[in-house]
């Protein structure tokens, strides 16, 4: 599967700024298909986890009100350039993806 996550992580003054973009439809389950008039089933990311050296630095629990192709940015301390950051997501249909990025 093609990687659905883009991660940029940069250390500046001891603080790592992480920016992630996930490509995901984030269907709420409330929208109707214009042609078939049927509801489009819900498909949205429920959880995003970010790990640094095996430690969880952020876990996000999401509802349907997060925009399509979600953007998430956060900051944390204690990382050095060259470290690996793992970002993973799971959606309500059980689909998941993860990616490892090197902190710059």
């Amino acid at each position, binding site marked *: 599967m093609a990687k659905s996550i883009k991660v940029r992580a940069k250390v500046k003054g001891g603080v790592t700024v992480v920016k992630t973009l996930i490509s995901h439809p984030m269907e709420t389950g409330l929208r109707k298909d214009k042609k078939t008039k049927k509801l489009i089933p819900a498909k949205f990311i429920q959880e995003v986890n970010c790990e640094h050296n095996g430690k969880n630095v952020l*876990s996000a629990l*999401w509802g349907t009100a997060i925009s399509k192709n979600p953007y998430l940015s956060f900051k944390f301390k204690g990382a050095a350039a060259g470290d690996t950051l793992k970002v993973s997501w799971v959606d309500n249909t*059980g689909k998941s993806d993860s990616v490892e990025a090197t902190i710059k």
Partner: protein
Amino acid sequence: MNTKRRTFLKSSATAGAIGVAVSAGLITPRAVFAAWPKAAFEAKSFDEALKGAVGSTSMADSGDIKLKAPAIAENGAVVPITVTSKISGTESISLLVSNNATPLTATFNMGAGAEGFVSTRIKMGKTSDVVAVVKAGGKLYSTKKEVKVTIGGCGG
């Protein structure tokens, strides 16, 4: 090494069940799914959603939380939101949109070393207050901001 281990243990305790599951390497899609507070995310009333997300509805307004959101959002499908919490020991940041069908939008649980800062993009059905709730030291702090959504796209 030892100090690292201490903070690791401490953070996994405060981050709650999910943090423990993740740090213990028990993470499977099924386990994560169970941790997701379904009732809170499906709750239609603001209080119910808040209670499900953070366990209480009593919160104090705080000037230490900065909620950056546009005053007018032309497109309700993409509203950029940034929350900065200066409260020490911020454990989680929750975002709620009071006029959305299901108010609870997201909860961010802070792990080891995470700063009180998150930025994301949310959907809003109509003009509403966006509320950021910060949990720190077992207490809840909040701040809110009204975002006007112009569906017609006239920009006014």
